[in-house]
């Protein structure tokens, strides 16, 4: 049984249909990537899974249970962490407070402390900046904080929306190493990326989304080899 099953979801922003029936599956322990151009509906797919948007039709099944009617604040409690597009750090909370708020559903203070230390071990840069306000961090640091914050609740499934966006190449490599490391430590990851080459390199499977519909899917190596993918998303050589 797959960990997450998205069945034919259709999501709207007002009158505009952003997803025209998207279905995908994520198995436990996988890295699955969702690639596609701007406005294809990648973020909307993640937002529909985490409950920020509601599908008008279709289902989201997590661990065998439908979750698409639950509000976002309950879905996170089931073990789905979302690193949102644009990081969405709380700008006037400190780094430490941002992490603590990530552990909002945990009442055991000792556990929160432990997880915070774990985040600081994963991202030593954040430890140096622990009393600084989130809004004063660089883009890369904010991305680290967004990931660290999502990990505070120790999710089983991590939805990551464009973690490489706007980062220097060195930092992109670092973030991708972190993603692989988290996966090795047992996290299942659904990764949305514009950087299709890198995403397909670390993923086991991939889906290609175009204007609200899936056009291709399959093992990541096969997708990377397909001429139309190379043409459209890998800079075509």
């Amino acid at each position, binding site marked *: 049984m797959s960990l997450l099953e998205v069945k034919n979801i259709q999501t709207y922003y007002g009158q505009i249909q952003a997803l025209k029936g998207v279905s995908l599956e994520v198995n436990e322990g996988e890295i699955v990537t969702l690639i596609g151009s701007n406005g294809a509906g990648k973020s909307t797919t993640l937002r529909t899974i985490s409950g920020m948007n509601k599908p008008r039709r279709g289902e989201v099944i997590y661990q065998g249970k439908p979750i698409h009617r639950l509000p976002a604040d309950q879905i996170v409690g089931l073990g789905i962490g979302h690193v949102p597009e644009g990081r969405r750090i709380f700008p006037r909370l400190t780094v430490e407070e941002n992490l603590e708020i990530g552990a*909002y559903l945990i009442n055991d203070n000792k556990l929160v402390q432990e997880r915070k230390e774990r985040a600081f071990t994963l991202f030593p840069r954040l430890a140096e900046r622990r009393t600084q306000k989130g809004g004063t961090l660089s883009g890369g640091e904010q991305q680290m904080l967004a990931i660290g914050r999502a990990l505070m609740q120790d999710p089983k499934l991590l939805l990551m929306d464009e973690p490489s966006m706007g980062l220097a190449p060195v930092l992109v490599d670092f973030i991708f190493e972190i993603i692989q490391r988290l996966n090795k430590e047992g996290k299942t990851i659904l990764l949305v990326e514009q950087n299709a080459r890198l995403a397909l390199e670390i993923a086991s499977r991939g889906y290609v989304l175009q204007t609200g519909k899936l056009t291709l899917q399959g093992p990541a190596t096969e997708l990377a080899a397909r001429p139309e993918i190379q043409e459209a998303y890998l800079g075509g050589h």
Partner: protein
Amino acid sequence: MSLTDLLSILPQTLLQGLLLGFVYAMVALGYTMVYGVLGLINFAHSEIFMIGAVAGLEVFRYLGKSGNPFVILLLAFVVAAVVSGIVAMLIERLAYRPLRRRGGKNVLVPLITAIGVSFLLQDLVRAIEALWHNEFNMQYPSYDSFNYDIFSAIGSPLGLILARTGLIVIVVSIVMLLALNYLVNRTKLGKAIRAVAQDMSTAGLMGINADTIISRTFLIGGALAGIAGVLFGLIYTNITPYSGFQPGIKAFTAAVLGGIGNIPGAVVGGLVLGELETLGGTYLGFLTRGNFGSEYAQVLAFLILILILLFRPQGLFGQNVSEKV
């Protein structure tokens, strides 16, 4: 009056201004906190304040002759805080939340609703008091032990006079402000309130139920306003169902002055406004050679509001809107 006369009453004027300022500050906090989480000016907040004053008065009415006045005052604070807090929460639940659910983008709708709730509460209290006690003008009690001048014992330095009630206003306000500061900056609830204020949808991803947090924010702001209502009653003694309007709108001005949404700003704004109004009341006649008397002090608050909106709309401590993203 000579200049020395005018100077000799300055310390007392500043002290009076401080008392008024603390009351404004405590009411202003409710405006600013609700604005912080919802972006809504809760104009019904002035009635929450009035209801606190009336609730405290009822405690004195029923228990006032039966024991130590200070114990009864303590009880009045508790009752006012509870009643005002619950009324504030109910307003959110019954009036603002349904509007939020419908997801309208028009900010005027909740604003007009707030004004409507404000009128409704004024006349509801008026009806209740008329039926219950056949009263419109209500008097806070005056005990000798309340009015005792605490400075008389140390020889009235600088000619200062401060009734015990005045001291109570200062102490209670400071205690409440410190408590609020602790709550907002050190507790989990406080962190959640700030997170919701900064980014409501991302707060949901953290597992925070925004409705719960908004409700608690109304409760806290309402309780502070209720206590401020009792303090106001202690200073001015006469309360009517319409007593909330003027202090309410001035507290709102104080919140804008400090930068709406900013908690320390509301406190500073309240204190500045209290001082300006009291100083104006004392000195305006002299400064304008009698052309404008102390009655114009009331206008000062609104003059200040207009000036802020013209020259520094984000207020003294306001963040630039762009930072809120």
